[in-house]
């Protein structure tokens, strides 16, 4: 069972993601954020439930819906915001933008627009951890859309035959872009694909932090002990569109509102810990206030930050002296 302190850390992380994304929704509409932005609000329990089980030697790989996992993994939120605004002091010096947040020092191997590639890259990170005897595991967060990519099937097979220390989390938010899972995925239960690759697979309520945390803990322990990969399907709902600007006419009316009212991961977390007397309500309220203040500062600083210098265009193409 997690300590009070750990629970408050998890709550702070989820609240930070929520506030960051709600604010991004507003700021994006005002203009000034380059490129595509994919918001994670509603899905906080999965990234935070995953990252609460990871240590510094572990790595997280994820997708274009990148802000939440980056914050959950502990990347500097000011640098995250600056990267989304494509500024020179962003996590990736403004080269990656919203969908490619990456921070080696936080164990964030990164967001990726190749939506299924994280599973293959994660196989390599896991192989390296084993060969170099670091004791680390890799966790690949991929969406329901990526489940249909060939590279994911290939990588699941590879991870299984090599018994790699890898955990695969399918974040099933119901839509691959604007196409429903019910239409696009044969066999509605994504986790059942695990059976074909001879690994454990479970489905969890992706709005329940505790359910995610518990299943990921088992999977991480199993991977760390050398027993191979597992699949966890986290069923959830995203509160915004595929990307900002998506009119979402394809979604049932009230889908988001109902979830916000009755199944919101933050509300459920509060209820759970208060019912069980595991934290003080005043501590949760203080976090809410502190996070709101933090987000104000983060956006203010990000918007004021400099863009990369023009001399940076041709830098770091290669690790060697040759730059093309």
């Amino acid at each position, binding site marked *: 069972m997690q300590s009070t302190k750990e629970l408050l850390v998890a709550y702070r992380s989820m609240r930070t993601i929520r506030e960051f994304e709600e604010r991004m929704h507003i700021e994006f509409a005002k203009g000034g954020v380059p490129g595509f932005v994919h918001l994670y609000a509603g899905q906080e329990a999965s990234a935070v439930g995953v990252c609460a089980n990871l240590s510094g030697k572990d*790595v997280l*790989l994820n997708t274009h819906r990148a802000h939440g996992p980056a914050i959950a993994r502990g990347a500097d939120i000011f640098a995250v915001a600056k990267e989304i605004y494509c500024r020179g002091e*962003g*996590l*990736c*010096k*403004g*080269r*990656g933008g919203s969908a*490619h947040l*990456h*921070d*080696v020092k936080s164990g964030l*191997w*990164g967001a*990726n*627009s*190749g939506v299924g*590639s994280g*599973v*293959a*890259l*994660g*196989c*390599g*990170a*896991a*192989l*390296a*951890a084993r*060969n*170099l005897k670091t004791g680390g595991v*890799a966790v690949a967060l991929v969406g329901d859309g990526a489940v249909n990519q*060939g*590279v994911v099937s*290939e*990588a699941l*097979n*590879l991870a299984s*035959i*090599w018994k790699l220390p890898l955990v695969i989390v399918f974040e099933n938010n119901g839509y691959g872009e604007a196409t429903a899972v019910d239409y696009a995925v044969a066999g509605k239960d994504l986790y059942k694909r695990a059976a074909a690759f001879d690994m454990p697979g479970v489905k969890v309520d992706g709005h329940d932090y505790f359910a995610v945390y518990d299943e990921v803990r088992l999977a991480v322990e199993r991977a760390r002990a050398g027993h191979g990969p597992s699949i966890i399907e986290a069923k959830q709902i995203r509160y915004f569109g595929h990307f900002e600007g998506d009119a979402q006419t394809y979604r049932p009316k009230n889908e988001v509102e109902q979830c916000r009212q009755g199944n919101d991961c933050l509300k459920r977390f509060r209820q759970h810990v208060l019912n069980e007397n595991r934290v003080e309500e005043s501590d949760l309220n203080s976090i809410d206030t502190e996070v709101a203040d933090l987000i104000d500062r983060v956006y203010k600083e990000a918007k004021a930050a400099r863009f990369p210098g023009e001399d940076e265009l041709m*830098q*770091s*193409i*290669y*690790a*060697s002296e*040759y730059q*093309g």
Partner: protein
Amino acid sequence: MAGKTYRQAINEAILQEMRRDSTVILLGEDVAGGTGAGGEGDAWGGPMGVTRGLVSEFGVGRVLDTPISEAAYMGAAIGAAASGLRPIADLMFIDFAGVCFDQIVNQAAKYRYMYGGQDKIPLTIRTMMGAGLGISSQHSQSLYPIFSYFAGLKVVVPSGPYDAKGLLISAIRDDDPVIFCEHKALYEMVEDVPDEPYTIPFGEANFIRSGGDVTIVAMSSMVHVATKAATELARQGIECEILDPRTSSPLDTESILESVEETGRLVIIDESGPRFGMASEVAAVVAEEGFALLKAPIIKVTPPFVPIPAAPNLEQLYIPDVAQLIVAVNKVMES
């Protein structure tokens, strides 16, 4: 120093680097061969026997047979390279790049730049290219120029055993992703190759033959076609200078321009396609930067614009040959 085949030179480079550096691993389809089959292990060493013996010395933890899953193991090689290993990923035929193109060009090539220079990707992709074995369109292409398009990748195209060993050791020690393209018609070629490890820098052309009349740029197996043609042309009194750039990215444009400055005439022979290929690139560089040096229009000697047929007589028509090169050189000498 001893006579070694291209195959032996490549095997020796990998062997020596794996002994020198425990982070070097080899993975790919049948790089050992026979894994899990119940018979003898180390059965193949790849279809051409290039990596034979390595699994016996280094074990299955460092020499990993993969399933036929090019996208997965190429992605894994990239992830491993980002995580402290120095993988050699064996892509059995360059044609199979179609299956893992996304991993190579959108992951490996972009990883360092897009993530702001946080990472290095010390990955070598060994692959086999070229026509001549009667195995048709999906096993015979010379696709190396495609990879030379991408900033973030380096592309090496060795024409013989000496270069193969030195360039492969450079590739393995390099901190960037390198596509190392072996020509399948060269594996039996023998040359003196030093026993000890040595490196050859990328981006430095090899002057194969000097001559003042015509510059011939040739890579990989075409170097040997060029050498034969030049010997024949010398009998006719035409002296050809042959340059083998050895790497298409980086490309030693400086040496090519220097040679054209001397000769004023350029013929490029290459086994990649006639359009948007290596010959087109070299021609474009010289047209752009050395137009005033030219006494005659540049000529490209390439295969025709067609997939590669299996029938040996048609395949021979496809591969650029000595006779075509001699015709081309004679033509540039007319102006």
